[in-house]
Each structure stands twice: as C-alpha cells, then as structure tokens.
C-alpha cells in the first residue's frame, strides 16, 4: 500500500461535500467534480440520527459477514 493505491498516477476526480465554493474552484480549473447538496441527516433530529447510525452499523456488519465489504 506504499503507493497509496496509485493515486499519484490517476486523474483526480472529486466528490465535494459541504462548502460549495470548493467545488466551484475545481469546476473553474476544469477538474471533474460533483458537489453534494448536503444537509444534516434526519432533518437534524438527533434521536433519528442515532437510530440511522445503528442501522448503518448493522448493515456494515452484514456486508462484512457476506464478504462484500
């Protein structure tokens, strides 16, 4: 892994999550990117977020057990 999955030889393509101007800067330079119009999950409701987190963790465990991770 000492070549960081060959990243230095790849074309950088970016997913930007958060501040839109970072994506706009990339677009201006012709760098391929997709901006995520991110909002807090579950409408910011902490209780539902905690439940969603548990579901996510459970899904990850299932994926790992199936060897599909």
């Amino acid at each position: 892994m000492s070549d960081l999955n060959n990243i230095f030889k790849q074309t950088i393509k970016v997913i930007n999550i958060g501040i839109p101007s970072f994506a706009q800067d990339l677009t201006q330079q012709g760098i391929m990117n997709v901006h995520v119009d991110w909002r807090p999950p579950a409408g910011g409701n902490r209780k539902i977020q905690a439940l969603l987190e548990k579901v996510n963790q459970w899904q990850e465990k299932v994926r790992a057990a199936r060897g599909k991770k």
Partner: protein
Amino acid sequence: MVIKHLIKKQTYFDSVTLMLIGSKIKKLDGIDNAVVGMCTDYNIDSLKRLEMYQSEFDGLTPNDLLICIKADNDEKAVAAIAEVEKQLSSRRGAPGSATELAPSTQEEAANRLPDSNMVLISVPGEYASREAEKALNAGRHVMLFSDNVSIDQELKLKTLGEQKGLLVMGPDCGTAIINNVPLAFANAVRRGKIGLVAASGTGLQEVTSTIHRLGAGITQAIGVGGRDLSEKIGGKMTIMATKALANDPETKVIVLISKPPADSVLEKVFDEFKSINKAIVVYFIGADPKIIEKRGFVTATNLEDAAVKAVELAGGEHPEPEFSDSLIKSLASEKRLPAKAMRGLYSGGTLCDEAQRILQPIIGELSSNTPVKGCVKMPDIYKSSGHCIIDLGDDDFTRGKAHPMIDPGYRSERMIQEIADPQTGLILFDVVLGYGSHPDMATEMVNSIRTGRQKSGRTPIMAACICGTQQDPQNYERQKAILEEAEIAVFPTNVAMVKFAAACLERK
C-alpha cells in the same frame, strides 16, 4: 432601533456561505447588526448576548435557518432580510451553480462520478467522520477540511486509511495539492520535483508558493492535520504519505513541516524514514535543529529556508532568497517609525507563529493571543499594548464568523483601530492568495488602511507579505501593485517581512 427576523424551518446552508452573507448585510446603510445562521447553540447564545433574541426562537433546531436584523427602522430591516433571501437563492440551485440539481448524498454523487477517487469534506465536525468513513470504505481518499472531529474519530479513520492504503488528510486540513489539483485553500503551483507533507495549512501554502516563485515546482503537497504527529495518532499519515513520496519516481526531494512531534512519535517517524533514499528537508517549527541534524536529515530554520533548501536539493543550484538581508536592511533604513510599538495582524496561524519565533529574541517583550515560548499572552485580545502579533484566524476571533482569509471584516476594523493607536509605529500583515481565499484581499486591506489614516491622521509604517504565485486567481503581481500604490512595503515571504520589522525596530 428595531429587530426583525425571518425563520426558514428545515433549510440548510453551510456556515461559510451564511457568515459571508451576514458580513455583507452588516455593512449596509442603517443596519446595526445581522445574524444569518443555522440555529446552533452558538448562534442562539450570540443572539442573546447581542440582545436580539425573540421568544419566537424558542424550540428552533440546528436544522432551521434564521435571519435576524437590528436596524434603524422597519424599512431598512425588511430590505436587509429581502437582500439575504436574494443572496441565498442565488447560491442554491442557480443555473451553473455547484448546487444545481446536486445530489444530496455521497452515494448519489458516486453514481454520477463512478471513478471519483477523492472526497473533500467540509460539513460540521459531528457529521464529518461518518462521511469520511463512507468514502474510505468505498475506496476513496479523503481530505477532511472539517474541524471539531474528536481525536478518537481521527484515529479510527486513519487506522482505516492505513489498512486500505488511502489518504486521510485532516481533520482540520485546509490545504492540499494532489496531482496538480489544489484542494480547499491552496495555490496554483507549477509541477516539479519536490513532494511535501505538512501538518500546517498556511505553512504548506507559504513553502509551496515560495518554491514556485524560486522557479521550481512540486509533485504533491499532502496535508495531514495538526494532530497527526501526536502520541495518539502516532504520525500514521505523515509516515504513509512520506513513504508514498519516497516510492514516487517523480519526487526527488521530500519536505516535512510540522510542530515538533511527541517524543515517542519522533523516534518512530525517524526510524521509518531511515530507509528512504531521498533527501528529506525537515522543519519542526520551534524544535532544536540538532535533533534533526544528528539523524542525518536536512534541517530548515523557517518556512522560507525550507523552500530554499528543497529547491537547492532538487536542482543542484543554491537559489538566493527573493529578498537578501542587505536589501531588507536598506529598505528598513529608509523608514522612520512614528512610534515605538509593532503590531502584526495575521490571517495565517503558522505565519503568526513564525513571526513571533523570529522577533521575540530580537525585540524582547512580545505579546500574542497565541503566544509561543518566550512570548506573553495578551490580557485583552481586542486591545493591543506594546509589541503584539495577533492570529486573527484563531478560534477566539472566528467563532460564528468566517475566517479572515475569506472575510476581511474584523481584520479591517482592527487595522483602523491599530493605525489610530498612538503607540503604533509599524504594522505587519499577511495576504494569503490562492483558491478558497478572498478574491481581492489587497484592495480590502488598502481600503481599511486609507480609512484608518484619514480618520486618525496617523501614518505608521505598513508592511505586507504575500503568500501566493503569479498563477493564483488573484495574481501575485496585481495584488503587490495594489499594496505598493498605497505605500505599503511588500515582501514575498513572511520571513523577509519579519526581518524588515526587526531591522526597523532595532534601529529605533
């Protein structure tokens, strides 16, 4: 005075967008104050402190947007709210904007760009590590701009990154350049032979820009976040990134910039580097250079020196710093300070740190809001006394406000205040260019300096350093010309500006 507000429930905008809009609204005629933000605990506390809190705000959540205006009259307040709404609508969903029909999750974004290999994350810290983990599990490298990510979360992410051979740059990582692509706050730097790993954003900007102006270039500039060399994280990303640069055939010289590591980490890092068959320039800010030299690495004494040494090792010729010591002394000899005290108004934290380390041994008593060893903590960070060097990007000044690299607001006010202070004889400031930064900071600073001079009738000596390149969107030469026209001495590096300050003060 009237207070008007507008609540937009379940409407989210990022804090930088909202803070910049709020800052513009405050400047409008007849507006006393404006809070434009999500209803976080901090914003609600601010409204109470500013005596703008209304009973209708009870029960609002961080997912609700609030616009609250204190103005001379109803008409001005209503107009200001309308202006905020106009600005918000222009930022969301406008044709050609980044948010036009934008996906709302990382998974949807990955469907649109299936071979994406980098995720740049700048959401609030409490949500950031989840997004980073998703990215790593999908095999993408991460740049984590967000702060307020716990060190336990950082360890978890970096352990995962290490297992998968993926970069985790951050948290609180402001600068990176990967394969010539500037990410977040970074400069347009030419391609070359020098690879950099740094735990400091402005430190990385200063060294990469200086390398460019000296005629050389870089392969990669990898930010690792300020805590990477702490005992808990153990230098995981520093080691991984440095080894990757060691294996990269295009990289001939490696530069490492960080605060001094924890003792146990220092040994580990140097052990890992022993087998690397390339020159490594190490600048551990404030550390004794002997600990680096005795292990056979090249040591740098400051950010400019790190750039000069790296360029020399990469090209075989010794470049001179852009401003020689004799030129700096001759520039200082032309200046007569109208009073004894020096004030530094910095937007770059590492540049503020560097200025203190160079100046304190020369001028003696020196205060700061972020004092380094030998300097004194300012009793009141909003009022200078004697020699002061201030980091205006520190949390104390930026809570609920945009960073001074993108919003000149408070620095402009402070500039006017410092010019008017009869103690002030010399003012230093930095202008950090590049992607992410303000589009024309030189003009903003010049406007506040002219206002300060006119209001007070005082003309302290002004000096600025520009961190940037000719290829930056703001253009180094254009920014330099704007500053020089206002009779500000302009230096290419912080070190050169600070040496000029020392020469002025020693002569006084």
